């Protein structure tokens, strides 16, 4: 009877004495699963939304270029058809400064939303020395990799954001022509975009 009632307590070893500490940790496999889920979620949610934002920025950039074209056309209407000339300007910002404030009090139309420069210096490249009634050629674009004429297939925009001519990174950039139409292209010139004689490509200030 006594033997049955009395039971000596079982001695716990060290690991059994702190069981909660062990249970609170993630197993390596669990950690892997969580990381995998996070990566998948990131890929599913953040990836497309980044792409969507990029696309939106590019559309807004194109709209700013169209507004810039409006102001340039108005300038040309009041200057015998001539768009603003280079006239010693070292960059597009200096060349486009003649538009402020008589043709645009808002400098934000000179900027690309993708660069995050709100209302500051121009982000667009501008081809100075053209006429409104001249042949249809490139008038302005996102910042270009250099100030040279671009033949078909030549690199026109940089692959990386922040790099010279990389307003939209790998997404390429926008071009606006004298007649007001906008083309969204990749990082290389889709066709010959040579500058007409007397024209000068001005990139934004560094």
């Amino acid at each position: 009877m006594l033997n049955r009632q009395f039971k000596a307590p079982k001695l716990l070893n060290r690991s059994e004495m702190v069981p909660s500490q062990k249970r609170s940790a993630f197993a390596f496999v669990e950690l892997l699963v969580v990381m995998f889920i996070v990566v998948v979620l990131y890929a599913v949610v953040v990836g497309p939304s980044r792409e969507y934002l990029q696309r939106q920025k590019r559309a807004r950039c194109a709209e700013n270029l169209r507004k810039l074209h409006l102001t340039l056309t108005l300038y040309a209407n009041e200057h015998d058809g001539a768009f603003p000339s280079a006239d010693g300007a070292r960059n597009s910002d200096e060349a486009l400064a003649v538009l402020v404030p008589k043709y645009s009090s808002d400098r934000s139309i000179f900027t690309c939303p993708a660069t995050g420069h709100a209302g500051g210096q121009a982000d667009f490249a501008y081809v100075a020395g053209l006429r409104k009634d001249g042949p249809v050629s490139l008038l302005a674009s996102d910042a270009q990799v250099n100030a040279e004429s671009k033949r078909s297939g030549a690199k026109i925009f940089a692959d990386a954001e922040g790099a010279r001519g990389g307003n939209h990174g790998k997404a390429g950039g926008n071009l606006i022509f004298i007649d007001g139409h906008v083309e969204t292209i990749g990082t290389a010139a889709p066709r010959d975009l040579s500058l007409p004689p007397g024209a000068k490509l001005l990139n934004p200030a560094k």
Partner: protein
Amino acid sequence: MSLQVPTKEIASFNPSATRRSTSVSVVMALIVTLLVVTLGGASWYYFFGRKPKVAMTVALELNGDTATRGLWSAGPDELLLVGDGDVRLIDLATRKKKWTATIPKSVPVDAGWQAAMNARFVRLQQWSDELSHKRTGLTGEAAIKEFNAEAAKYHAALTAARAEMATPRATPPPAAIAKKPASAAAVPAAAEHLKPGHVFGSDRSAVDALRPVVDANVQIIEARMKKRAAKLQAWRTALDAKKANAKTPLQKSAATEEEARFAAELAEQKKDENSLGKPREKSALPVSVAVAPPSGENKEDDGIGNDAFSSDDASGTAKPQAAICGDRLWIVEGSHAVAFERSTGAVKADVRLAGLALRVFSDTATAIVIASAGAEAVQVVRLGADAQPQSSYFFTGRRVPAFSMSEHSVMPGIQDLRTEFAAIGGSLLRVEIRLKEKRVTTRDAIKAGSEKELESVAGGAAAHSADELKAVTALLRNDSARLRGETIEHVDDSTYEVALKRPFEPDAAEWTGILRGRVQVFSTPTLHLVTAGTKLLAFDRANKKLWEATLGSPLPIRRSDGESGGASRPWIEAGGRLFLADGSFLNAFDAKTGQVVWRLPGVGIRKIQMDGEGSLYVQSDNLSVETLAYAMDASLRDAAPITMRIDPADGKIRWQVEKYQDLWASGKDVYVLRETKFAGDLENQVFSPGRAIQARVKIYKLSRENGSPLWEWFQPRHLQAVEVQGKNVALLFGEELQVIRSMCR
């Protein structure tokens, strides 16, 4: 026996300590009071002060005719409300009605007689113009004699016409009309006589012959109404007697029930009264046909109106317009203008017009009313505070819409002769626009390849996302436009000869010029402005051209500046500058020289307001620049509207906020409106109208500093008009006028 003095108490009594403790108590009390006041003030501010409250309401008839209502600011802290046949002047300072007056009914006039008189006066005006022209070139005694004889004839004809006009022929009673048989052959004969060019006044047989043609339905309704009115009158008397004699609860209850039945019958009677107006419009058809333009034209209002005169002009169904002229408040409703005394509301004048009032201009002393006088003429009436009304008639050319949707495209309304009016106070400008060379350019209204862009957006967007929905909707709209063949837009690029004339200042020199593109005319406090294409011309009150400027693009074709109380004008003159939004820019010109101070690119700007501090607020539909070229491309029209605060000095945008649809600025305050639509509401309106929310309207007050909302006011009903005066916001709904006021913010 000695006096026992409690030594302990004496020892503890210290006068200075008592004073100190009193001071401490006072200070403590003050602190507590201050705390309580501060906490109370803060609580009051949090719960009451920062939010708007209903300052006052004015009840209106629930089923009243909303088209006959209007709300205007009549001066500082004063509102003028017209509705249900009454005029009310409301004092916002005391939150009370100053007075209520009934608008007298205009005397119904025989439509045929009125049409004939209008045509007669137009001919007399033309005769007068011819005489004035002849007078300048008179040479020789014989010519002068001949001129004098003709002038005498003219004056005799004018006197006779005025005498006849002074005693208008009333609309004949239906019974009398019914006696005469309708004659179909009479209509073409009348049409011949009512043609412009025919001299009216001598032969009235054709006009008289028109009157027998009356809609039989009208007579039936009128007869029914008469019978019912007599019955209702008798019932009312009996019911009043019953109510007076009702003593027991049962009798009282029966009287109440009978009262409800009476009210229902009365409502039915009113419904019939309202419906009577509609068949009557039809009944006047023969007269309208005779003077109105051919069918297929004039289906839309071009801002001047296109109504032929009919007997229903007097029925008061037209939207009332107000002119605040010092101590006279003119209400122009239908075909008469009534002057009320500002202090008492007494009716001071009731001026009959030739037809429906089309536009009203006013300043502190004078009101000018342009009224229809047939399809191709107008009557211009100048109403002074005390002087007799001055009236002139002008042949204006047929009024057609600025543009119309034809079977395959948008067509501009090009006319051989068009007349526009603008006014600076009492100085009226009449602009005659004659077509010199017709030229219409065509362009694609839908962007080529836009479907590819949309398909790409729809393909790239997440399934069932808002982007996908937008793109698909735009695709469908474009396809639908293509199916209808509406892919081409025609633009008026014609050349016009424009003449500026002053009807009330005959000595003012006439200005004439040639302009290209559709001509639009409007006025600011100091300038008369004429635009055509991308040209803007400014004139003074003497028709002298002050300056000329270039616009970024032509002004969108809009209604005249006399409409909607001028609230939606995309131009304003203030501080020596003219701010004007054309199709693509907000321009700031020096009002004296026309020099451009600055321009702000922006497509779709439709309202400019300036607050009491001189800040400029702009409401824009924020359209894409491409909408300037592709008028119908649905893919270019889904931008969120924006509200901007702009520095008038340099044109810089101080802040801009999205989503609001309308804007009002007054004093130091700026208010915006947002109306949203829920699909569930639309469903309820169809399946359970009793539960359906009419509208979801929110009025916001914005911070002047950053455009963030300070408070919002939600109302689940349709808003008809808004008038803002500083911290008071008057909202006109179907059944009431509600004035809200925020005390602190």
